[in-house]
C-alpha cells in the first residue's frame, strides 16, 4: 500500500451556517490536465516551469468572437494584435483563421512579413515608426495609422519624394465616459484635432484616407463605451463624406476587450463581471448600423482584439519550491513561477490551482515567486490548499502579454509548448540557456 501523504495541521475559523454571497465554497478546484494532457506529463517532458498554449482554445475563442460580429455586421475583419503574443506559431494560427496583423513597431512589422502576411493586410499602429519603417509600409501598401502630427509631416515628406500614395488612417482618442481617458495616443476628437488632421490628410497629394481608428483603453468592462466611440468615429466618417465626398473604407475599433481574469482590487471575480464578445459586438455594431452612414457605404469593421482572444489559451505550469510561515503567522508558499514570467500579476489576481486533489482544506496563503526580490509576489492572499515541496501548480489564463513582456531576470525563460488540435505537443519557443546570453555579450579585451 502506498504511503499516505502527510498533511500538515491547520487551524481554521469555523464559519458553518454563514455562507457568504457566493455560497459555500466546497472543495478546491483542481486543473489536472490541459486539453486532456496531464500537467505532470508536461512538466516531466518540458521542465518546470513551462508555458502551455492550447491551439484548440485559440481557434475556438477566435471563432466565437468572429461569429459574434459577423452575425451582426456585414463586413468584419480581425487583425491580430502582435504585441499581445507574437510567437510565430500563435500569429500563424490567427492568420490561418483569417486575421490580419496589427503591429506597433518595425520589429513587429518585419515579424508579420516573416509570418507570410501580405503587406496590404498589415495595420501599422503606434507612436514609434521610423522614416524607414514608414517607407517600407508605404511600399507594401500597408495601412498606416497616424498617431501624431509629426508622423503626418514625415509621411507627407516621404510620399512627396517617392510619389507613391500612402494608405493612412488616424488614431482618434475621445471621451467615451470611462476613466482613464487615453489621450496620449492619436488625435483628440472633442478638441477638434482629429478633424483638423483629417482635413490635412484629405488635402495632401499622396495620402489616401482609408480608415478611422480608436483604441479607447484596456480591459474595458463597459461595452457601452465602445458604442460611444463607434458613434463618434462614424460621425467623423460622415463629415469626411459630406465635405470631401470620400468614403472611409474601414473603422478600426482597436482592442481592449476584457478577459475573464480578475483585476486587482475588483470586488467581484472577472468571470462574473467581464462582458462577452456578444456584448461588445452588439454595442459596436448597433452604433455603426444606427449611424448616419447608409447601409451601402458601411465601412469594414476592424477589430484588434488581443487579450480577450488569447488569454484563455495560455497556462503556466510550475512547482512548489517551499512552504514557510511568516512572522504574522500567515502561510507562504514559494513557487518557481515569478513576476519575471507572470508580468500580468502586477494587475491581475491570477487564479492558481493545484493539479492534484490533496486536501479539502485551504489556508490563507501568500504565494511568492522564486526571485530574490521583495516584489516577487504572485498572489498576496489566496485561499490555497496545503501543497508541499515538489507539488505542481497551474495558473490558467496567462496567454496575453506574458510571453511578450516577460523578463530575463535572475532565472532563464522556460519552454513554451503548444498543444495542437490533435493533442500533440510542440515546443514553439525553446527555453533559454546561458549560451543564449553569452552569444549576445561581448567582453572588452582588458577583461578577457
Amino acid at each position: 500500500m502506498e504511503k499516505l501523504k502527510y498533511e500538515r495541521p491547520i487551524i481554521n475559523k469555523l464559519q458553518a451556517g454563514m455562507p457568504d454571497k457566493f455560497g459555500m465554497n466546497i472543495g478546491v478546484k483542481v486543473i489536472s490536465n490541459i486539453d486532456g494532457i496531464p500537467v505532470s506529463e508536461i512538466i516531466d517532458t518540458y521542465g518546470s516551469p513551462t508555458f502551455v498554449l492550447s491551439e484548440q482554445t485559440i481557434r475556438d475563442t477566435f471563432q466565437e468572437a468572429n461569429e459574434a460580429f459577423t452575425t451582426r455586421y456585414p463586413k468584419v475583419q480581425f487583425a491580430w494584435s502582435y504585441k499581445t503574443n507574437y510567437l510565430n506559431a500563435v500569429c500563424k494560427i490567427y492568420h490561418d483563421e483569417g486575421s490580419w496583423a496589427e503591429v506597433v513597431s518595425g520589429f513587429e512589422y518585419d515579424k508579420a512579413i516573416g509570418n507570410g502576411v501580405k503587406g496590404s493586410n498589415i495595420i501599422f499602429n503606434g507612436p514609434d515608426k521610423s522614416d524607414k519603417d514608414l517607407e517600407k509600409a508605404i511600399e507594401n501598401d500597408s495601412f498606416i495609422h497616424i498617431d501624431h502630427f509629426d508622423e503626418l509631416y514625415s509621411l507627407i515628406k516621404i510620399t512627396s519624394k517617392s510619389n507613391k500614395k500612402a494608405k493612412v488612417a488616424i488614431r482618434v482618442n475621445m471621451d467615451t465616459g470611462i476613466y482613464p481617458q487615453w489621450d496620449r495616443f492619436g488625435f483628440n476628437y472633442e478638441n477638434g484635432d482629429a478633424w483638423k488632421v483629417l482635413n490635412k490628410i484629405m488635402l495632401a497629394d499622396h495620402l489616401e484616407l482609408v480608415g478611422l481608428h480608436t483604441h479607447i483603453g484596456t480591459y474595458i468592462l463597459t461595452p457601452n463605451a465602445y458604442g460611444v466611440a463607434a458613434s463618434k468615429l462614424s460621425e467623423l466618417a460622415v463629415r469626411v463624406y459630406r465635405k470631401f465626398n470620400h468614403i472611409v473604407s474601414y473603422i478600426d475599433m482597436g482592442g481592449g476587450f476584457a478577459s475573464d481574469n480578475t483585476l486587482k482590487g475588483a470586488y467581484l471575480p472577472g468571470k462574473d463581471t467581464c462582458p462577452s464578445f456578444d456584448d461588445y459586438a452588439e454595442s459596436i455594431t448597433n452604433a455603426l448600423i444606427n449611424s448616419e452612414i447608409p447601409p451601402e457605404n458601411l465601412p469594414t469593421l476592424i477589430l484588434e482584439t488581443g487579450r480577450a482572444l488569447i488569454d484563455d489559451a495560455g497556462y503556466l505550469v510550475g512547482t512548489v519550491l517551499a512552504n514557510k510561515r511568516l512572522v504574522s503567522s500567515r502561510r507562504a508558499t514559494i513557487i518557481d513561477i515569478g513576476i519575471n514570467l507572470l508580468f500580468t500579476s502586477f494587475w491581475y489576481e491570477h487564479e492558481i490551482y493545484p493539479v492534484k486533489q490533496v486536501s479539502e482544506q485551504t489556508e490563507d496563503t501568500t504565494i511568492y515567486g522564486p526571485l530574490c526580490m521583495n516584489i516577487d509576489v504572485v498572489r498576496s492572499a489566496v485561499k490555497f490548499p496545503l501543497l508541499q515541496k515538489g507539488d505542481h501548480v497551474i495558473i490558467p489564463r496567462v496567454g496575453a502579454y506574458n510571453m511578450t513582456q516577460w523578463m530575463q531576470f535572475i532565472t532563464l525563460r522556460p519552454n513554451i509548448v503548444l498543444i495542437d488540435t490533435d493533442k500533440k505537443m510542440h515546443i514553439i519557443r525553446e527555453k533559454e540557456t546561458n549560451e543564449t546570453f553569452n552569444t549576445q555579450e561581448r567582453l572588452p579585451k582588458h577583461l578577457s
Partner: protein
Amino acid sequence: MSKPNSFTAKQFWEATINSYSQVFFSDNKLFGFILLVVSFFDIWAGISGLLAVLTTIGIALALGFSHFQIQKGSYSFNSLLVGLGTGLSFTPGIELFVLVFFAALITFIITLALEGFFAKYALPFLSIPFLIGMWVVVLASRDLQDIGLSERGIYTANELHAIGGIGLVNLYTWLNNLEIPHVITTYLYSLGAIFFQYSLLAGFVIAIGILLYSRISFLLSLVGFLTAYYFYSFLGADIAQYGYTYIGFNFILTAIAIGGHFVVASKQSFLWVLLLLPVVVLFTLSLTKILLPYQLSIYSLPFNIVVLLFLYILKLRVKTDSKLKEVSLQLNNPEKNVYYLEQAENRFKWLQYFTISLPVHGKWKISQAEDGEHTHRGNWKYAWDFIVTDKNDKEFKNQGDFVEDYLCYAKNIIAPASGTVVEIVDGIEDNIIGDADVINNWGNTIIIKHATYLYSQISHIKKGSFKVKKGQVIKKGETLALVGNSGRSPYPHIHFQLQATPSVGSKTLDYPIDHFVIDNNEFNSYAKPLLNEQVSNIKTTNLLQQALKFIPGQTLKITTENKEKTTEETWQVKTDYHNNLYLVNRETNSYAYLHQDGAVHYFQNYSGTKQTALYHFYLALFQVPLGYYQDMEVTDSIPSNLVFSKFRMVLQDFLIPFFTLFKVNYKLKYIHIDNEMLPKRIELKAKITKRIYTKDKEHQEYTIIISENNCIEIATDTMKINITKN
C-alpha cells in the same frame, strides 16, 4: 428623319414576308420568301394572295393598328390564305381582284374580333378567321354569276411553263415520274395544299423551307403526318381519297403547333402529338360529314379545334412544374423556344421578379426549411427558420437553459429588401427554453410590404426590440429588430416567409432568395436554402461592382492583341425599351445582352459574329458574382448554339426534344485578390468546356484581370483583350 409613327418600307416588306411564314408559325424571312415563291406556282393564286396581304396591311395601317403586330404578319396571314383560296378557285379578272379585296377585308375584321375574344383566354386565333372568310366566299360565290370557277390546277404543266419555262416543267415531270412511295407523295401534296398548291414540287419546296427554318418543325411535320397516315390505314380508311380536299395539312400543322410551337418541344410534347393526331383524324372524318350538306370543305377546322382545345386545357392545370411546358415567350421557332426555356429555367426564371435577400448578417443555419417537419406545412410550407451554430454545430453556449445562451439570440434582423412596414406585433414575452406559446403562435412579428402582393413576414422577435415603426419606409439591409423567442418557439430562432397578403400568418408564397452563399463556397442564385445549410448573403466587392457596372450611354474602348496584329473596337452601352441593357459593337452588329442586379453580373444573350472581342467578353464573363470568394466555383451553361458551329447544331436541333447532345459548361474560379478590403487587382479564371454527349473537351480558358480605374483584361493563350471605360 422619319416621323415616330411612320411605317417604313422595310417594315412593310417584313410585314408582307412574315404573312407567308406566319402560316407555319415562323418569322423566318428566307422561309417566307420561299413560300411567297411557291404561292406563285399558280400565278393568279399568287397574285390574289399577295393582294389580300397588301390590302390587309393597308387597312390595318389606315385604321391605326399596332405596328408591331402588323410587322409580325399576325393580322395578314389569314387574309393571305383566303386570297390564295379565292384566287385559285375562280377565273382571273377584275371581278376576282375585287372579290379578293373584300374577302381580305372580311378576314381582317374577323381576325381582330377573334383576337379580342381569344386574348381573354390567352389563346391564339390560329386560322379560324381564314375558315370563316373562306366559307363566306365559297358560299357567296354560288350566287355570283360573273365569277366563273377556275379550271386551273388541271393543266399544271402549262401553268408551270408560264412561270419557270421548260426547266421547271422538266423538274415537275421528273418529280412526278419518280417512283416515290405513296406515303411521301401524300405528305408532299398535303404540304403544298397549305398554300393551295396541289403539286409535288410545291410540297417539296415547302418541305425544304421548313427544314431550313426549323429542324424540329420538319421532324414534327413528318411525325404528325405519319401518325395520321397510319392511323387511317389502321382503321381501314384511305387518306389519299381526301387528298383533293386539302386536309392532310391539318395533321402537319397540329403536330408543329402542339409539338414545338405553343408547347416547348420535348419527349412529352412528341408523345402528345402521337396522342392527339388520331383525335384530329376523328374530327376530320366527322366534321366532313357535318359540312357535306353545305358542300363546304373543312379546310383547317380539325387543326383549329384540336389545338385550341388542347391549349385551353393546358392553361387549366394546377401543377405548373409538369414536363409539358407551354411557351411563355414566343420566339417563333421551336429550337429557339427550347434553348430559351433551358436558359430561362436555369438562369433567368426570376429575373423580372423583385429580389429578396436573407434577413440576417453573416452565416446562419437553416433549422427548418420549406416543407419542414415541424410547422412548415400546408399553407405555411414555403418558409425558413434561421439559427446560428458554432463550428461544432451547437446552437447554444453553456447548458442552453436560458435564451441568452443561444447564439442567435438578440442578433440583428435586417430588411430582406426595401419596402414599407405594414404590421408590427410586439409585447409578447420570450418563452422559457423548451416551452412554446401556442396561443400567440407567431410571437412578435413584423410584416413588410415590398411590392403589390409581395410581403415578407419575420416572426419570434424579441419583445421591445423593434427599431422601426409601422408605416415606416425602410431600405434593404436596415436593422429591423432582434431575434427573440416569442410565440411558438421552443428555442430562439426566426421564422421568415413571403406572402401575398399583409396579415400575420398569411399563406406563404413559393418565392426564392435572390443570391446566397452556402458555407462560403457554394453560390446560389434565385434558389431556396435547404435544411441544415449554412447560408449567408453575398458580400460584394467594390472593385468588381464598379468594373462590371455599365451605364447606358457609355462608350468602351477595346484593344485586342494577338500574335499578328492589334485591333481596336468600340462598344456602346445601350438600353432598349424593355429596359434590357446591352453592349453593341456597331461595326459588326454584334449585341451582348446583360443583366445586373448589383450582386451578380450575367450575360443573357449574344447575337452577332463570333469574331469580335465582344463575343469573348460574353463568354468569359458569362456569370460573375460580384464578391470575392476564394474557394467558390461558379458554374453555368452557355447556350450551345453560341459555341458550336451552325452545321453541328443541325444535328442537335433534331435531337433536342429527346436529349441534349451538345452542352457548353461555364466555370468561374476566383484566383487572386491583392487586398480583401481595398482590392486593386482581382484575377479570375473562366473555363469553357464543350460537352459532346458525355465527352468533355476544353474549348477556351480565359484569365480575367480586373484592376483599378475600371480596367478589364481578358487573356487567352493567343490573345489579350483590354477594355477601358470612359
